[in-house]
């Protein structure tokens, strides 16, 4: 009898089929491959580590429950991202807002001080100044993202932070390519205007 293929050599989509067929260890392999991705994916939505772990856990449970219905119609990562995205959006709805930082005024020097290249000037040793500006900038960005509608916020997170193409975003969000294009540009336009007005206010 032929030995089963090592799980590490099986593509994601086939692992789901193995799981469907009763090979439970396939799920362990999926979790091993995607646990870090899942936590980071959720973190980019909620910006809270513990919450992103909880949502990821729930995402894997949902995936497990879904195993019998699974069909290879899209990439596995699209399915997982879709599950996680929906859970994050549920969380937004529950909380209404996901901004947790207290937002102070912009630091002296305004936008110049919040230049991302300054923030990354020393990768190995984040100094207090760098941390301060990261926090300041993060607070500002979160505040502005928070004012966008969930749909616009989602497309921006998927495009800007995860780097998904418009086509991939359309698959994850279950929307048409044209809708995604319009949403991304509108979201970015709103973001730009809000950034400008925030800076003018400072």
């Amino acid at each position, binding site marked *: 009898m032929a030995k089963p293929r090592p799980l590490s050599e099986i593509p994601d989509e086939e692992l789901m089929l193995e799981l469907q067929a009763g090979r439970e260890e396939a799920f362990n392999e999926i979790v091993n491959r995607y646990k870090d991705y899942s936590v980071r994916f959720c973190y980019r939505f909620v910006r809270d580590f513990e919450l992103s772990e909880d949502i990821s856990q729930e995402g894997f449970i949902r995936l497990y429950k879904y195993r019998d219905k699974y069909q290879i119609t899209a990439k596995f990562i699209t399915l997982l991202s879709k599950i996680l995205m929906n859970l994050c959006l549920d969380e937004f709805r529950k909380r209404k807002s996901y901004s947790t930082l207290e937002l102070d005024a912009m630091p002296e020097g305004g936008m110049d001080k919040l230049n991302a290249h300054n923030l990354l000037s020393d990768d190995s040793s984040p100094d207090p100044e760098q941390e301060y500006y990261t926090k300041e900038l993060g607070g500002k960005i979160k505040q502005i993202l928070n004012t966008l509608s969930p749909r616009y916020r989602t497309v921006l997170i998927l495009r800007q932070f995860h780097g998904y193409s418009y086509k991939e975003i359309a698959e994850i969000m279950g929307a048409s390519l044209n809708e995604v294009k319009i949403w991304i*540009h509108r979201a970015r336009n709103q973001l730009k205007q809000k950034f400008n007005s925030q800076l003018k206010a400072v």
Partner: protein
Amino acid sequence: MVNSVDEFYQVSALLDDELRDSEAMEVKKKISGSRRWKKQYEELKALGDLLRLWDELDCRGIRASATFELRLAASLRNLRSRQSSPIILFFPH
């Protein structure tokens, strides 16, 4: 005549690498030939870079904790016991 909304959309799509080659060439030409287009491009690019780099910093070290799999295994055991399924899940360490 191209209005500022079209201009914005085209520059935004260029930055996302979502234009066909011929369209991208045309937009690049407009950017190099017009101060207004260039300003639009530079502003959008700066905003994108800022967001991306902040995200990079903020996500540094974000990965599943050491107890992630154990917690998940416990949840799955509960789920299966509710479903009265005899499946045994094992997470290697």
